[in-house]
């Protein structure tokens, strides 16, 4: 918790946080104004949520790239690792810190929700499910970013790694259309890519439907990447 708190306060003093906020608000603002906030449209955040992944996949890496990389580069990792905290505490602290910042980003979209509420009547159940979906997606994205940050002391490499991975998760639904042929293997790859796509799982949340399979997708992949991060942290000292 201490780590998380420090992480958040530090983030607010670093310019990158404001750049992230700026990009996020700009992107969400453009999507919102263009696709959602149009007179006569349904008052739902659905499309904002569906499109948010195309912005978050490059915003989240900016947010997470320094989490571990910077500690490695500056040598502070030595200070942290010789403090009486376990790797797990460290990981959890960093994760919670990053998630907290992500939730602040989500909090910024209350601006958009407020506009919707002024000019229409959004469905509260659906809105809740939208935010839940966004938070879960953010959790997975942050986990991926955390993993890459733990792998290298170079922030740029970490950002690129998570950008590519998240890009895959974001676009694999669309990319799967490009898979040619109709052999068994290709069909299998096709369906696997559709399963891996964030869009497949985000859609129900944005609709207002909770489904355990989507819940488990986000939680599962977050867990996978957090676990891998833990392994990387643990194994670093053994190398």
């Amino acid at each position: 918790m201490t780590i998380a708190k420090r992480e958040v306060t530090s983030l607010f003093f670093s310019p990158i946080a404001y750049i992230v906020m700026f990009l996020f608000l700009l992107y969400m603002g453009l999507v919102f104004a263009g696709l959602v906030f149009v007179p006569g449209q349904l008052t739902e955040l659905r499309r904002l949520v569906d499109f948010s992944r195309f912005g978050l996949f490059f915003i989240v890496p900016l947010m997470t790239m320094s989490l571990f990389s910077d500690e490695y580069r500056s040598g502070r990792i030595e200070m942290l690792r010789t403090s009486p905290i376990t790797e797990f505490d460290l990981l959890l602290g960093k994760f919670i810190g990053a998630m907290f910042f992500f939730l602040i980003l989500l909090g910024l979209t209350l601006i958009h929700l407020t506009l919707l509420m002024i000019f229409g009547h959004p469905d509260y159940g659906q809105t809740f499910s939208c935010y839940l979906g966004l938070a879960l997606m953010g959790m997975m994205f942050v986990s991926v970013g955390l993993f890459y940050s733990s792998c290298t002391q170079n922030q740029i490499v970490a950002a690129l790694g998570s950008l590519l991975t998240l890009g895959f998760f974001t676009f694999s639904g669309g990319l799967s259309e490009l898979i040619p042929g109709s052999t068994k293997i290709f069909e299998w790859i096709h369906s696997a890519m559709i399963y891996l796509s964030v869009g497949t799982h985000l859609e129900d949340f944005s609709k207002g439907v909770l489904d355990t399979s989507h819940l488990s997708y986000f939680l599962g992949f977050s867990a996978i990447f957090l676990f891998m991060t833990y392994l990387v942290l643990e194994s670093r000292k053994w190398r």
Partner: protein
Amino acid sequence: MTQNENQIESGASARGMYWVNLSLLAVLGAVILGFALYMTNTHKLHADLTSGGIYSLSGSTKKLLQQVDEKGQGYELVSLFNSDAEKNTQVRDLLGEYSRVSKRITGKDLSEANRDEILGKIFDRYAGEIKPYENAVSEFEKLSKSLDNFSEIEGANLGALAQKEKNSAQTRKECAELQGFFNSSLKEELARQQRAIRKISDSKPAEWWKATASLKTFLDEALPDITSLADKGKYKETFSAPLIAYLDSAADRYKAMSDSLKTYKEHLDKLPPLKVQDVIDSIGSNTIIVLGPTAAKVIGSSDIYKVQRSPNPRETGPTASFEGEQAVSSAILGLVRPDKVKVVFISAGSGPLSSGAYSMITDRLKDLNFEVMDWSPPGGNPGERAPADPNPPAEGKGVVWIVFPPEQSNPQMAAMGMPAPSPTGVIEAVKKHIADGGQVLIFAEQTSTNPFASEGPAGFPYEEITRGFGVDVKANFMVLKSYDSQEGSEALPLFELSRFPEHPITKPIQSLPTRFVAVGRSQMGFVGAPTVVGVDPKKPADVDAQVIVDTGNDRSIWGESTVSAEPKFDPKEDLASPVPLAVAASKKVTVSGKQEELRIVVIGSKTLGRNELIQPQLQMRSGALYQVVPYPGNAELFVNSVLWLSGYENMIAVSAKSNAALRIRDIQPAVLTTLRWGVLWGGAPAAALIAGAVVYAIRRR
């Protein structure tokens, strides 16, 4: 010393152990995660958080999908919606819900560009039906060869005749004409047919019926020509002697040819009509195709988005309601049900109702996979259009009879001394039908025997049937107080109900406007005589009877016992609201040793399902014309009653969902621009940057 050696080694072994632990942990974690992901994907639980429950299929649809899963046959739902983004999404979401609930159903979003793929799938399902057509076409291959040969030979022979100098000019001209027929027009036409056939058979999927249709027209044209040449009586008169002599000599060949063509044409004519053709013809943009294991159904856009009269027509225009679930579920039900339940419209003395005044209801029932028939039992008006048939087309268990009251006697007929339509034949038949375990929907209206003598009711002819089910058909008419007959001769005394007592039949039509015709006079006399139908207080103990329609608290309607030109509510004799108008009753009986439930529905207004009351009307809505169903409850009440009677009440209760979703209201362009620049893509991001700059400046101090 050895202990110390061990200690020195301990670091290395700890390192080894560490990696072993780590890999074990990694494998364990992967297994647990994989299992969790798999389990949650196969055993999905889901919750619809929308307040309107937009993404929840109704209980009856779920029951239906359970049946689908139990049967284990795959269904494919294909949406061809592609014009309106909002509708596309709505339909896609709906199909997604089906595939979510049932493992056997897959939903797909395709466009008409995938037409061939879809057609292929449909053809697969109708392969058995299409096969005879394909065979017929390939048979023609053989026939066309002999025809080709035949025309070749005849052309040559006739050509030779035409060349013979000793033949008269007339003969030569005739021969040349015939030669022309064989050598060019017939041959060319034949070649064209063969090309067309090849084109069809090459295309995948092949639409063989197009080939047979084209062959039919070909034969229609060619056959008379050849037959006339084989018919001595005919060609004798038209042709000159040498040609007649030639045709005489060739008579066998001509006969054989024309016979084989005739047989083939008869074969073509006998091919059963194709259902697949209807399916394919109805495919278009904005349709949903339901591909079942052995058949397919196409749901049109107007069945999915039904425009209805809004409750407050002055405030809002008609609203389109999304009835995708009803449409898709009934299509699936039609495909799931192994055999069709037969519905028989029975009315002594009227024409076939299913194609007449009740054709729209009939269509609805057919959509729900009912087989609709008519029976005009003897005893109707003499000289009626449909001849009386002493035997019903279907009766007994599993058959629903819809029994209408006998037509009122035609005044002219009565004047000529013809007897009034008699219900006795029907009564006997219904009794037998019920005794065999059949279900009945009775429209109970009091009839007047002689419209000239008295306009009053003359008793209810099916009394003895309904009584046994504890249904009390009273001698009271529904009267509407505010009806002003002077207003216009066309105006009918209509009253509208939209709340009903709770019953499986009425559950989904709560709040749907339903219209009934009250007693009233028109130039024709009584236009209808809706009768009070209640539950008999002295009903048999084994009967479960329940009122399904009553007039609620509407004081302007009452059950009048004496009909006069100026009806008045008389508390002593008349029935005040709520007046019951329909009853659903069931009775447990033993039919041939088995416990069965007999069901009956009695509705006191025979006009309920007439086309006039349920057909859509054109209405203007924001400058465009829309088809609006003014009283959607009428058809629903009728169809739901039939569903309940046939034991498919789980198909009822798929109620329409309002499409009047909440929308962003109109915003002035200036406000919109200000919001966009001031907040959305200007103000808020800039605020973030400024905040960052401020914090940075403070910290760097």
